[in-house]
């Protein structure tokens, strides 16, 4: 088998298909080098020019490895590894000399498909995987068959793929799942997107541009009002003039909730974000999985969330949160960086000097936002070193982080303990799936102030300037020409319906395919009626299922090898011949019907008449014009009745 041009094109297509999905996260130079190598190889094949010399390839290989080492500072880890693999595959294409190289390339492309799943495991990715697999299989068959045309090759590949799907399904359901990881994995093994534990001007508005799903929520009974849907994430205490950070809690005491009311029950399916925090409605009181309750009502899981998880939670919508806060924590909630924002400090001091109470002061601060031409925008002007001063007195345009940050600063300056809370607000209801979707664009920052006897009280300064943000979401709150992600901007009912359909499908996919871990497997198999779900039983069932399906396939596959079924007349005739063969009178392959009848008649004179009639009838039916249905039936009956 030679490496013909169509085969080389097939291999180029394989490498192109498996590396294309990586284009958006590979470094630009790597994509460019890969594309250039593929184009070069295509040109060489089309023009029939010889492959480049080995020393040139060595230089390119060495250069690529060096470039990877420089841009990633390592050759290991996910990103560097994937880049290396793709470039090596493209280089292997340049030194394709023997059939063995082609086989190596096919194996390599199968392997590169799997690396794409680090980045995406969505339904479109799965469909693309099937398409890629089809192309790889067709090329692979080409390796073995050589001259076969594209169409029959694609046919063989497609049939093979279709037959493999049910078997793979059995394996997928029953293959005993092991809770990974088997070995330590590089830190960058998981994609991260979502809230971080710091907040500076611009961090929230940047997140708002993504319509990636953060988590999905199903409420078990009644659904809270929209302005109660504050999904609590990291709580930020420490401010350095520009950035808020979580800092260290001064106490390890579990926070207390008193006078609780309006409990809500719900289930959260959280997308992996590679951080420890879990999201729950203000204020969580119960959680189904093991997690820490930080003193500031943050839920922290034991391990970073690097796989999709589900948990049930109960929250209390009315509460008094930690009315007996530790003094050290209260002192943290009053700390301000020295020397920053003198104007803001002065404003707070002025308000304080009026001798008004804490409640009144908060109202004044909020009124300050709503009355002084503040606006809510995704693209605020940049701020200087005194960011709060600039925002409050000069630009007056900002996103939620600007409002939260300046409000907390004002409160602290006025002597009221306050802190920033980040998380998500609102959610989009999918009535097909009956759940809420929280996207990164729902990311929000609000504040909490601590008041004597009432504990921590949630104040959302954004609500003061843009009530629509809280009531109807980001789209309603921003002007129409704002650059928002497509999914948030669109309002067409048809698109909306399609989008909900797709998200409902995605949710099922996430639950049943991507989230199919050892727990799900146990639950599912128990529901199917498997009594003792152990890995031994699963393995046995898996083998049994595979054996059963393989048996069915064997029958189906081998049927086509046998000679084609003869027509009814011939079948009957052959049956007659078999009967005679049993008594030692087999028909010779060359023997015609009449001759055979004569020979049988000589050997067994008593059969003469019957044989003659049958042979005449057969000849008439098969070679003559008489082919009526009842004649055929009569012939069949006669054969059946023929006894020896």
């Amino acid at each position, binding site marked *: 088998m030679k490496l013909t041009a169509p085969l080389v094109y097939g291999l180029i297509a394989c490498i192109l298909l498996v590396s294309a999905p990586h284009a958006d996260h590979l470094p630009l130079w790597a994509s460019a080098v890969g594309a250039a190598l593929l184009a070069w190889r295509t040109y060489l094949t089309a023009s029939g020019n010889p492959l480049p010399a080995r020393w040139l390839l060595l230089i390119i290989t060495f250069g690529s490895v060096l470039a990877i080492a420089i841009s990633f500072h390592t050759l290991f880890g996910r990103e560097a590894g994937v880049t290396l693999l793709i470039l090596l595959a493209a280089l292997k294409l340049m030194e394709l000399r023997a059939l063995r190289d082609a*086989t190596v390339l096919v*194996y390599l492309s*199968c*392997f590169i*498909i*799997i690396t794409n*799943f*680090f980045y995406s*495991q969505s339904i479109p*990715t*799965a469909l693309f*995987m099937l398409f890629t*697999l089809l192309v790889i*299989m067709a090329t*692979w*068959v080409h*390796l*073995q*068959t*050589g*001259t*076969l045309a594209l169409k*029959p090759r694609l046919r*063989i590949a497609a049939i*093979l*793929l279709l*037959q*493999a*799907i049910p*078997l*793979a399904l059995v*394996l*997928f359901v029953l*293959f005993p799942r*092991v809770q*990974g*990881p*088997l*070995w330590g*994995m590089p830190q960058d*093994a998981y994609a991260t997107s979502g809230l971080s534990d710091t907040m500076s001007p611009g961090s929230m508005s940047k997140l708002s541009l993504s319509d990636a799903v953060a988590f999905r929520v199903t409420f078990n009974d009644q659904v809270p009002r929209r302005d109660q849907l504050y999904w609590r994430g990291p709580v930020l205490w420490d401010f350095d003039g520009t950035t808020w950070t979580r800092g260290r809690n001064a106490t390890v005491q579990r926070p207390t909730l008193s006078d609780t009311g309006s409990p809500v029950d719900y289930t959260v399916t959280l997308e992996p974000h590679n951080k420890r925090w879990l999201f729950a409605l203000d204020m969580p009181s119960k959680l189904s999985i093991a997690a820490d309750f930080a003193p500031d009502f943050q839920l922290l899981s034991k391990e970073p969330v690097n*796989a999709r998880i589900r948990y049930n939670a109960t929250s209390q919508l009315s509460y008094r949160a930690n009315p007996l806060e530790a003094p050290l924590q209260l002192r943290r909630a009053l700390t301000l960086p020295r020397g920053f924002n003198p104007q803001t400090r002065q404003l707070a001091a002025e308000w304080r000097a009026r001798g008004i109470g804490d409640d009144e002061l908060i109202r004044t601060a909020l009124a300050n936002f709503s009355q002084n031409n503040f606006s809510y925008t995704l693209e605020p002007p940049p701020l200087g070193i005194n960011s709060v001063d600039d925002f409050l007195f000069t630009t007056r345009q900002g996103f939620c982080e600007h409002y939260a940050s300046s409000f907390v600063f004002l409160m602290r300056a006025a002597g009221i303990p306050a802190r920033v809370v980040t998380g998500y607000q609102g959610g989009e209801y999918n009535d097909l799936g009956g759940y809420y979707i929280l996207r990164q664009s729902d990311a929000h920052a609000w504040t909490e102030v601590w008041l004597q006897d009432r504990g921590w009280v949630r104040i959302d300064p954004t609500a003061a300037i843009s009530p629509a943000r809280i009531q109807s979401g980001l789209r309603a709150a921003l002007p129409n020409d704002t650059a928002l992600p497509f999914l948030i901007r669109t309002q067409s009912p048809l698109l909306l319906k399609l989008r909900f359909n797709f998200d409902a499908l995605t949710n099922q996919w996430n639950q049943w*395919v*991507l*989230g*199919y*871990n050892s727990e799900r497997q146990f639950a599912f198999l128990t529901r199917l009626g498997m009594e003792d779900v152990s890995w031994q039983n699963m393995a046995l069932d898996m083998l049994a299922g*595979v054996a059963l399906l*393989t048996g069915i*396939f*064997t029958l189906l*596959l*081998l049927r*086509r*090898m*046998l*000679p*084609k079924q003869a027509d009814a007349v011939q079948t009957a005739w052959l049956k007659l011949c078999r009967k005679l063969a049993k008594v030692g009178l087999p028909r010779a392959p060359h023997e015609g019907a009449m001759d055979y009848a004569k020979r049988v008649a000589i050997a067994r004179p008593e059969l003469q008449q019957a044989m003659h009639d049958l042979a005449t009838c057969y000849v008439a039916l098969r070679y003559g014009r008489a082919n009526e249905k009842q004649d055929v039936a009569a012939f069949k009956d006669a054969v059946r009745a023929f006894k020896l």
Partner: protein
Amino acid sequence: MFATFKRLFRNWAFRRSVESGTLVLNQRRIYIVPSRQGFGFALVLLMMLLGDINYNLSLGYVLTFLLATMAGLTMLYAFRNLAQLEIHAGYVEPVFAGEQAHFVFHFNNPGTLPRYQIHLHDDDGHHTVFDLPAQRSTPIELTIPATRRGWMDSGRLTLYTHFPLGLFYAWTYIHFEVRCLVYPKPAAPQPLPASSAQDGIGKVLAAGDEDFSGLRNYVAGDAMPRIAWKALAREQGLQVKQFTSQQGRELWLDWSQLPNIAQERKLELLARWVLDADAQGLMYGLRLPDGEVAPQNNPAQRTECLRRLALFGLEEA
């Protein structure tokens, strides 16, 4: 040592009698083992599975299982590619030693499924690859160089396929009772032997007067009617027409008259003479220590003489 042991084992494990008639490849005849590539792919799958478990990649499991089941199914495909083929051996044309013997096998594919990339080879690596269209009989030729005169056996042949992905090696052994007759390699051209007058039977090149065979220069005493007047008219000098008589020209190619050379050389020389005599249309006979063939000139004579030479001194199996 290991190779010897392996060969002995193979001969024992796959011992089969020689076939005659039509052979149908059934499941008892077809063996399948993973190929080296198959083991390589299994290793790739194992690495993928470890990756899936470690990184908990559900879609990775799907891909791994799809590839694994496809790889497994190709075992069935490989078997199916050979199964139910009907093979019978065809007539093999005799050849001279040093030429290629063309063993012909008729492969009938009775099913509706085309068969791809079937390889046929003997133990010495002579090899042919072919596809078999559905519901048709295809003659397949395996050429093996003929080295020695006599009967040449095709030996045990291996029929195998790697279809469709090269992960499995499905094979069967076929050994038909089919032989190719190999004539001795003709020696370099040499003049035919002169007639030997002593025995009184063989007279070579006796002049006769039946068939015109050419012109020769006039020698005094030649009969007037034999002078070629037309040649004289063309100013070609005085020439005489020559006639030969077939009847009197029996050429005996006699083993005993040959110089004292090795037996095989003698056979080669005789083979050469048989060809030349046949080409010149002479009546020739062959006399060997174990018998003789009466002089004749026709294709059957040539075949018979060459056959005698091919099998001389060999036990006819």
